[in-house]
C-alpha cells in the first residue's frame, strides 16, 4: 500500500440554514482546500463525495446533484454513504483511492443541507426506522439516543452533570472556530441541566444542532507529497466496522463496533497503547454523552471512566488527552457528512500547527478522529500523524 498524506482542507460556515445550494457549498469548501494545497482542479485525479440521507436535501441520488460543485465533472467520482459515519468514511474511501495506487491526488468533499427539510430534519429520520416493527410506534430518532444514554448512565452510575460537562467544554472550544454555529464562551453545566427536556435523559443542550455545511480534504501519495510540503501529515491508519441492525438485541452500554474499527486502524498505524500513543482525539459527539461513549469505544480509557477523566479536566484543550478541540458537533454544528471538518480536517490542522486559536499546546504528534452512524451500529476511524 502507498502512504497517504493530507495536503489541504477546507470548510464552510455551519449554520441551521445557509443561502447557498449544496453544490455551491461543495464548491466553496473545495476551493479553500485547493488553495491550501496550492493546486487546481486539473491536478485532482479522483473525487470522493460523502453525503448522508438523501431525504434531508430532498434530492435523491444527490451525489449527481452535487457533482459539479465537488470538482468531479469529467473525473472518476463516487459518492459513499453510511449515515453519520460518512464524515470519516468518505476520507477513508479517499485514502484507499491513493493507498491502492490508482490515484496520486484524491479530493474528498462532504456536504449536507438539513435546512431544506420541513417541518424539521427529524421528519426525514422517520424513514430510517424498520417499517414493520418500529414505524407503527411513530418513533422519533432522539428516542434511540435517549435509550442508549439511559442504559450507559445506569450501567456505570453516571451523573447527568458529568455528561453536561462535555456540552460545556465543546461549545466553549468552538469559540475559536470561525465556522461554528453554536459557540458559547459563557455556557455552564446549569444551563445544560436546565435546558428543555426533549426525551429524558436527553435535554436540548445535550444535542448538536441540525446544520447546513460542507467540508473538503485533499489526499496525496508519498511519491508526490514533497512537491507540496516538507512536513506532511499522514493518514496512518483507517478502520470501519458495523454491528447488527437488530439493535434491540444488543447491549448498548459499550460500542463494540467502535472498538473493532479502532483496533483495525490502530493495527495499521502501529499503535499498541492508544492511551499513550495518541495525543488527542475527535470522537463523534452529536450528543454530549456520545463523546464519552466513543472515548471508551476508541479504547482511550476504561469502560465508564470517560466521565471521570472529563470531570478531572483531562479532555480539555490543554489537558493530557484533549477531546474535540475543534468544538465538535456540539459547538461547531452537525451537518452530518460535512462533520469531516471537525473529525478529520481538524486533525490535519492541529497536526500541521495551523489550528490558530484552537491549537492544542505541546505540538501533538498523533490524533484520532471517529464518526458514528446508522442505527447505533456504524463506526469509522482514522489515525493521522505528523511528520
Amino acid at each position, binding site marked *: 500500500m502507498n502512504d497517504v498524506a493530507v495536503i489541504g482542507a*477546507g470548510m*464552510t*460556515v455551519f*449554520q*441551521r*440554514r*445557509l*443561502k*447557498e445550494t449544496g453544490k455551491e*457549498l461543495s464548491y*466553496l469548501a473545495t*476551493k*479553500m482546500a485547493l*488553495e*491550501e494545497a496550492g493546486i487546481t482542479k486539473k491536478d485532482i485525479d479522483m473525487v470522493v463525495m460523502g453525503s448522508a440521507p438523501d431525504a434531508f436535501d*430532498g434530492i435523491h441520488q444527490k451525489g449527481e446533484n452535487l457533482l459539479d460543485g465537488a470538482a468531479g465533472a469529467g473525473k472518476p467520482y463516487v459518492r459513499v454513504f453510511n449515515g453519520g459515519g460518512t464524515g470519516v468514511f468518505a476520507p477513508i474511501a479517499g485514502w484507499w483511492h491513493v493507498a491502492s495506487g490508482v490515484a496520486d491526488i484524491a479530493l474528498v468533499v462532504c456536504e449536507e443541507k438539513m435546512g431544506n427539510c420541513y*417541518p*424539521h430534519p*427529524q*421528519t426525514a429520520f422517520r424513514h430510517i426506522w424498520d*417499517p*414493520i*416493527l*418500529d414505524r*407503527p*410506534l*411513530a*418513533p*422519533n430518532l*432522539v*428516542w434511540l439516543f*435517549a*435509550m*442508549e444514554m*439511559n*442504559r450507559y448512565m*445506569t450501567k456505570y452510575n453516571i451523573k447527568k452533570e458529568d455528561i453536561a460537562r462535555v456540552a460545556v467544554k465543546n461549545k466553549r472550544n468552538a469559540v475559536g472556530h*470561525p*465556522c461554528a454555529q453554536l459557540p458559547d464562551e459563557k455556557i455552564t453545566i446549569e444551563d445544560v441541566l436546565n435546558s*428543555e*427536556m*426533549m*426525551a*429524558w*435523559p*436527553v435535554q436540548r443542550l445535550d444535542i448538536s444542532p441540525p446544520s*447546513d*455545511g460542507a467540508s473538503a480534504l485533499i489526499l496525496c501519495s508519498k511519491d508526490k507529497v514533497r512537491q507540496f510540503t516538507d512536513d506532511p501529515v499522514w493518514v496512518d491508519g483507517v478502520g470501519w466496522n458495523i454491528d*447488527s441492525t*437488530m439493535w*434491540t*438485541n*444488543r447491549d448498548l452500554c459499550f460500542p463494540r463496533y467502535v472498538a473493532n474499527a479502532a483496533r483495525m486502524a490502530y493495527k495499521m498505524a502501529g499503535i499498541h497503547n492508544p492511551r499513550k500513543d495518541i495525543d488527542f482525539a475527535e470522537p463523534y459527539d452529536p450528543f454530549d454523552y456520545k463523546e464519552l461513549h466513543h472515548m471508551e469505544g476508541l479504547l482511550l480509557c476504561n469502560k465508564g471512566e470517560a466521565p471521570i477523566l472529563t470531570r478531572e479536566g483531562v479532555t480539555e484543550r490543554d489537558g493530557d488527552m484533549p477531546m474535540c478541540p475543534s468544538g465538535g458537533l456540539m459547538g461547531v454544528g452537525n451537518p452530518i457528512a460535512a462533520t469531516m*471538518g471537525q473529525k478529520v*480536517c481538524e486533525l490535519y*490542522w492541529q497536526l500541521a500547527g*495551523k*489550528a*490558530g486559536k484552537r*491549537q492544542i499546546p505541546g505540538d501533538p504528534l498523533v490524533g484520532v478522529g471517529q464518526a458514528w452512524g446508522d442505527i447505533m451500529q456504524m463506526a469509522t476511524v482514522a489515525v493521522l500523524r505528523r511528520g
Partner: protein
Amino acid sequence: MAKKIEGSPGYAPGTRVSTKDIVENKISYTWWEPEIQYSWSLGQAMSKFLVGLKNGKILGRTCIKCDRVLVPPRMFCEHCYGPTDNWIELKDTGTIETFSISYLDSDARRIKKPILIGVISIDGASPLHGFMHYFGEMTKDEIHIGMKVKAVWKSPREREGAITDIKYFKPLKGGGKK
C-alpha cells in the same frame, strides 16, 4: 469572501440565513411536497410473528447452533449465518432494558403528556433479546431499568397483525417498585 482569519480554516465562506428571512421572503426559495406511497412484503419471519401477535402470542425462533432464542424472529442467524431452526412461543412478560420519557412526537413537535418508550427483553428469549414498545399504567417516576413488565393486548377483535396489537407493557404484579 469573508475576511482572512489567523489559523485554518483561513476564512469562513457561506451566508447564514434565519427562519425569519424565509418567512419574510428575504431570500428566494422553491418548494416541493413529495407524494409517494410504499407497500412492504413482510417476509417469512415477520409474517409468522405478526400472525402470532394477532393471536395474542409472542413468537421467537431458535438457533440451536448458537444456543439462541431470537426475538424479533428471523429465518437466519446473523452470528453463525446458518438457517434458524424452530418456532417457539415466548411469554408476554419481560424486563425493561432501557427507556426514555419523550416530550417529542415523530416530527419533533413538543407534546405535554410524555410518551414512555423503551426496549423490553422478552422472558424465554436470550438475554437482551426483545423489541421496542410503549409503557403504560406506570408514572415517569416509577419506570426504571430492570422493571418486570407484561404486555397489555388489544381485544382479539381489534388486533390486525401488527406490533401495535400490543397496546403497551404494564408493570408485572409486584414488579413496579424500584
